């Protein structure tokens, strides 16, 4: 019998075009997703050298980072406008399919890929965006690249890549009621830090991971990059197959069954060897809130902001002090005493239909706190429509939330959705870096349920006190 292999080995071996000692492998790329921010210089590069897009049929573009989510067509920022127009012109010139601002498929690139069925198990997927790791939820090898590499893939449909190391993150047990996929990944990064994944592809395994829905798996894989990992993925199973059945770009009938079997065969073999393995138990995971300026700076909602004076000399005391100061917090302050002024429910981490549903369950019948401005930004136009079809928009609007159009929005504040300096936001996004949501803005990362509860109460609360979060009422 042949050696047991990980899913990474299997995908890799199928995609090597050229191999040589002392060199990275030349890897074939199945799908290239493109957006307006990291592509203009790449297309310009092609033009200057008179090169073409080798496979427009393996390339798909959308607009997400810059687009307004209110007054769709009033793009006040002329530079943003130019960037969007440039993408449109480039896609026309090079024959690339584009879901532009008016297109029904428009949305955050990592939301629409899976939703359209472009994202499939076993594929190599790249995008000029670090959260491309999201697509790993399907058992694809998906990673972010820089603009030079975007140009390289456009021209050659390939990339020079060193074979990554593999890291298994194994989570046994079942997540408690009110504990979400977001809490799971925050807890992992909270324990192991923002660089434990460097140079590795993470594979998430174990009962707690198997039990996640596809959308929850995307939340987990999305944040792999916050652990420094090259990519994060989960072996395909029946959940994966059923999610993809009937999606637009997935074949039908017998072809689908053939493919589905191939997908299932990709799963890591029993006994496959990883370069490293980390274990956690789902029991240890509680709803998380970040208090600092990187995603590892998080604690359970019932805990306190850490005290730098109580830290060991080998820890990053300076970093913690700086973070506490930037965040305007006190050492030892309880998380539940932190008051917020903004709530953002959205981003490629948590803007899918199930995220909005869960947040709506908390919000239902409640009222946004008078000190809070709260917005919901669905991940794509089709998510927005599906949510409206079940009346989620009414629940949010009645409670005092704003209901916006699809885009990245306040996740990185490149459009008008900005948290003002010194103000505080409970956010379902993935980065709490200094200035991420606006210069001087203070970001606390949480799950959609926790964000919804914070919107109602004006401060962080343990969402498990809401019956709807723990499966009751």
């Amino acid at each position, binding site marked *: 019998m042949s050696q047991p292999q990980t899913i990474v080995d299997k995908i890799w071996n199928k995609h090597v*075009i050229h191999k040589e000692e*002392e060199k*990275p492998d*030349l890897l074939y790329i*199945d*799908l290239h997703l493109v957006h307006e921010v*990291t592509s203009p*210089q790449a297309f310009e590069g092609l033009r200057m*050298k008179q*090169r073409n897009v*080798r496979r*427009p*049929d*393996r*390339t*798909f573009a959308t607009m997400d*980072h810059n687009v307004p989510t209110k007054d769709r067509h009033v793009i006040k*920022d002329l*530079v943003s406008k*130019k*960037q969007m127009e*440039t993408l449109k012109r480039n896609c026309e010139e090079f024959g690339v*399919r584009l879901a532009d601002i008016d297109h029904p498929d428009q949305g955050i690139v990592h939301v629409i890929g899976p939703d359209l069925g*472009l994202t*499939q198990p076993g594929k190599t997927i790249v995008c*000029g*965006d*670090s959260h*491309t790791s999201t697509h790993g939820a399907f058992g694809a090898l998906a990673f*972010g*690249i*820089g*603009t*030079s*590499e975007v*140009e390289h893939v456009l021209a*050659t*449909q*390939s990339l*020079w890549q060193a074979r990554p190391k593999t890291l298994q993150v194994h989570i046994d047990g079942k997540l408690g009621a009110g504990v979400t996929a977001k809490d799971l990944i925050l807890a992992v990064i909270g324990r192991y830090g*923002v*660089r434990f994944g*460097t140079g590795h592809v993470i594979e998430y395994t174990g009962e707690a991971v198997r039990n996640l829905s596809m959308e929850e798996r995307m939340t987990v894989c999305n944040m792999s990059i916050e652990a*420094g990992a*090259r990519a994060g993925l989960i072996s395909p199973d029946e959940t994966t197959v059923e999610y993809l059945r009937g999606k637009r*770009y997935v*074949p039908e009938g017998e*072809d689908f069954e*053939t*493919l589905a079997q191939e997908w299932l065969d990709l799963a890591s073999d029993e006994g496959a060897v990883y370069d490293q393995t980390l274990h956690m138990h789902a029991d240890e995971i509680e709803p998380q809130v970040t208090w600092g300026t*990187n995603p590892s700076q998080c604690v359970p909602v019932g805990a306190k902001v850490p005290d730098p004076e109580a830290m060991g000399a080998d820890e*990053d005391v300076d970093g913690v002090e700086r973070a506490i100061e930037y965040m305007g917090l006190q050492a030892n302050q309880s998380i539940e005493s932190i008051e917020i002024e903004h709530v953002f429910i959205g981003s490629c981490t948590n803007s899918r239909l199930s995220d909005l549903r869960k947040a709506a369950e908390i919000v239902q019948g409640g009222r946004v706190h008078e000190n809070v401005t709260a917005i919901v930004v669905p991940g794509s136009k089709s998510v927005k429509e599906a949510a409206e079809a079940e009346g989620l928009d009414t629940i949010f609007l009645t409670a005092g939330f704003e209901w916006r159009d699809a885009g990245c929005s306040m996740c990185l504040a*490149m459009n008008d959705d900005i948290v003002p*300096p010194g103000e505080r936001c409970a956010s379902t996004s993935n*980065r709490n*870096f*200094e*200035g*991420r949501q606006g*210069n001087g803005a203070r970001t606390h990362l949480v799950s959609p349920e926790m964000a919804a509860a914070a919107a109602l109460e004006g401060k962080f609360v343990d969402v498990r006190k809401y019956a709807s979060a723990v499966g009751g009422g």
Partner: protein
Amino acid sequence: MEPLKYHKGLVYPLNRTNVDTDQIIPKQFLKRIERKGFGQFLFYHWRFHDDGSIREDFSLNDPKYQSASILVGGENFGCGSSREHAPWAIEDYGFRVVIAPSFADIFYNNCFKNGILPIELPNEVVNRMMEKSSSLPYHLEVDLEKQIVSDGESEVSFDIQSYHKEMLLNGWDEIAVTLTYEEEIDQFEKNYEKGVKTLGIS
């Protein structure tokens, strides 16, 4: 791309860990569609107050580092987004070499495409460089061919993949190199695309 074989320059120490790409170049400057001109926005919110005036307390604004071309940083340098605007800003500002105990993967890769040499060195070596450069002008010589960094008193060698090394030494256009494998790519596609067609984008 400009080849880089040997570089001698003044060191600027940035003693912070996890310097992320949002700090290196804040998002409001990602809207430009050009590749040049990002240097003025490097570390923008650390260098400037909100009204655009200079923050005297940020070390890069210290005149003694004005001609620095070697940046020495902390662990996990360049983490965060994949924006190549980060190396563009670093290069455009005038840095050719970045030294740190560890780098984020995408940033590390992006450097080579832009004529910047990222060098990983052990913590204690980086700390010594930080210390020395924080008071008096401190210069380093970097010899890529020999893979050596020297401050005139002591030398340390560094690792680099031979592929990356060649790329910088020759200032390659990577796409041109890959296109010499075009037949292999054609052949690969022919074999690969038999069977069920999985993508319907057209």
